[in-house]
């Protein structure tokens, strides 16, 4: 009897729950999709120096380093959104053309270009976002971390200031203390 009762509950839960939610949601977009949403959100909480933009209505260009397909995935999430009255455009960048970006995302796999990106960002006034360990120590501004399968980020406020960027207190308060 005991067995029967338990099973019925278990199976009922499984079947009903499955039907209940079937069709309600779409495919899992994975970690990169969530990171893209973070990147887009960051653009709302950063004040760039005026030198960072070629004109008053120029778009915010969000660049990704390394594998060009990363830009495609980020673009799927950002789509045609805007922030701070500027359109947000996504493109893949290389060390050579990174100076015209306002946000530069350096995925772990492209960690080797971090020093070049950080150096360029200092003069062009771009927000640098990385994920390799030591990115902040190298002079990067924001780094993604993971805690119990959830994304977190840490901020190196000094590096941002050094490039003339102002990061809003809201973003700073959500950032994990970088322990330093």
């Amino acid at each position, binding site marked *: 009897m005991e067995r029967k009762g338990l099973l019925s509950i278990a199976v009922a839960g*499984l079947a009903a729950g499955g039907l209940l939610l079937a069709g309600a949601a779409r*495919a899992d977009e*994975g970690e990169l999709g969530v990171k893209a949403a973070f990147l887009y959100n960051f653009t709302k909480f950063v004040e760039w120096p005026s030198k960072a933009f070629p004109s008053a209505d120029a778009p915010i260009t969000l660049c990704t380093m390394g594998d060009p397909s990363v830009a495609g995935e980020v673009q799927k999430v950002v789509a045609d959104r805007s922030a701070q009255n500027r359109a947000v455009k996504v493109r893949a960048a290389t060390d050579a053309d990174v100076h015209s970006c306002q946000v530069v995302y350096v995925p772990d796999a492209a960690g080797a270009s971090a020093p070049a990106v950080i150096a360029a960002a200092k003069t062009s006034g771009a927000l640098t976002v990385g994920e390799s360990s*030591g990115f902040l120590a190298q002079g990067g501004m924001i780094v993604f971390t993971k805690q119990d399968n959830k994304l977190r980020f840490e901020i190196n406020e000094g590096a941002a200031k050094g490039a003339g960027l102002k990061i809003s207190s809201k973003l700073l308060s959500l950032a994990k203390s970088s322990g330093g």
Partner: protein
Amino acid sequence: MRPVLRATAHVLVTAAALAAAPAFAVEASGSDPAPSTASLADMDLESLMNVDVTSVSKREGKLATSPAAVYVITGEDIRRSGVRSIPEALRMAPGVEVAQIDANKWAVTIRGFNEEFANKLLVLMDGRSVYTPLFGGVYWDVQDTMLEDVDRIEVIRGPGATLWGANAVNGVINIITKKAKDTQGLLVSGGYGNEERGFGAGRYGFAVNDNIHVRAYVKGFNRDAFWDGQRNEQGADEWNQVRSGFRADLDAGKSHATVQGDIYGGESGANVHAITNLAPVTLREFDQDASVKGGNVITRFNHEFSETSSAQLQLYYDRTNRDDYFTPEIRDTFDVDFQHDWTISDWYRLLWGTDYRYSKGRTSSSFASSLVDPDRVSQFVAGFLNNEFTITDGLKLYLGSMAEYNSYTGFELQPSGRFAWTPNEHHTVWGAVSRAVRTPSQADDDVRVFVGTVVTQPVTLPPPYPPLTVNVQAVPEAVGQRNFKSENEAAYELGYRFFPTPTLSFDLTAYYNTYDDLRSTEPGSPTAQTIQNAIATFFSTGIVPGIPTPLYLENRIDGHTYGTELAAAWQVTKPWKLGLTYTFFRMHLENDKDSADPASVQVIEKSSPTNMIGLTSYLDLPYHLELDHSLKYTDNLRVPNAHVPSYFRLDTRLAWHPTETLELALVGLNLLDHRHEEWGSSYLYATSRVQRSYYAQATWRW
């Protein structure tokens, strides 16, 4: 109908009834739709920080094109399965045979040859081998860590000898813990149940500075005994253990260093079956708690010389101290391992490395068991070279070999050739031909152990006695032989992975393995010395003693195995994921012409199930609830005199996250029957029936 079948029929009927009422179910829907790609960008940062991202997809990307049968059990899988130990977690992977012998012992293997000391499977924890050279196999009761800190368990089926060395004959299991950086903050967890008589764990992770992250943990558990089916009463296999450990990671740009270690202590109970006297022959069954303790420390350095060249140096020390009845042992192992990964051109990548291991066990003997050299040192030095050629964009060829020199058989060469062809993101085809060896264990060379059975048989007196034939009690004794050779395998594998949509994946593998020089136990005659001793005992005590009759360990079995394994995963909707595994296995062994081994072929052939099926479901429900199920089927084992019927297992977990930091879970394991057998017999211990188990658990993260 047997109870198990009846219960299963009930599952199917109930499921069908519910499936027929979708209108009701849809009506009841009140949950928030999960975010789609397009709406992700509209979520605010606080919400984004609550989205689960497992790094599986990233890893699956690499796994998808790998030229071997790899399955990854993630930390998330462990959490949602509700299992409380590493061997139990291994049931989730296809191709892995897991049979629980008693509450603290498991027989675990891949692709056949299962036994308590299954010796053709290599197991590593964070790069530290836990395969004991004493018997060749793994003491599963002491392989543990904080389960919340396990990042993943990589299960590689098929020979991995070219990269991992000897004894990776039919598979390699890598248990990998998270980086300290990914386990920051406080985690406290505890629970209680009918079999889980209290468990608890605490971990704290912190950052020393931007570059150094540290964590430390302590855990403990107390498990109830299972049911002793032979005596028909509660068994003697209680199990308790306390364990503590730490990990520190230093990330300094292109250099990384890790230091980690664990210590543990506990008791693993058993009902021991042992011959404790020969005059008269006494087979005693008594309860004994083996005291187990040990510790290890690992240091690992990685350096990236350039984008195309990186190296790793790893050193570890490991001590195990096991005070069980048969072979109490204190073992010290020291290992140093170096690897260099070098991409020399667009089409050529070289991976090479060397490994040296020194392992010394100091054993004591019991009446039933001893080793000729109780303090034997096992050593090997090995080097490997693996060449990866990119022929075209999607086609890679891998040629390599391990060469090792060990203190048992000398020089061993274990080459392999592999290919992987990925024409596009939807398909990968791979294949491999490999050679692997199982090198002798200390026991194969040196053991003398009474195998716990007694038979009456005629013995003819040797000279100088008159040729009289008398009936005596013969006590079979397994006797290791110094000329024991390595067991050889040649393996042929083919695999296909298919990703029709981003939410659906299939991984199919087929293999054919041939073996020669497998271990046999060749019956011998009692030696003249044995009989003289027996006669002397008779004259001095008046008791007719038992006569030890040797079973010599030799290499006189050949054979082949073949099988297929399937793993499929389907993300039905964002909150509902289904998994399916299927394993088919066949084995055919033969005694060599000069072999008189009457039993081994039958026992080995029948110790593996022909079919295994696993079905899992992970479901996220509204109100922060999770409902997870796992249903598994295992075929019968027709081992002579130790038949195990087929069985189903159903595990269910219901969890609730009332706040972001708290998780409350109710778990039921083995729900389908009161108790069932998974392993037929052991000649050293009573086996137990696995009982139904419930527990409640609370986990708090801060």
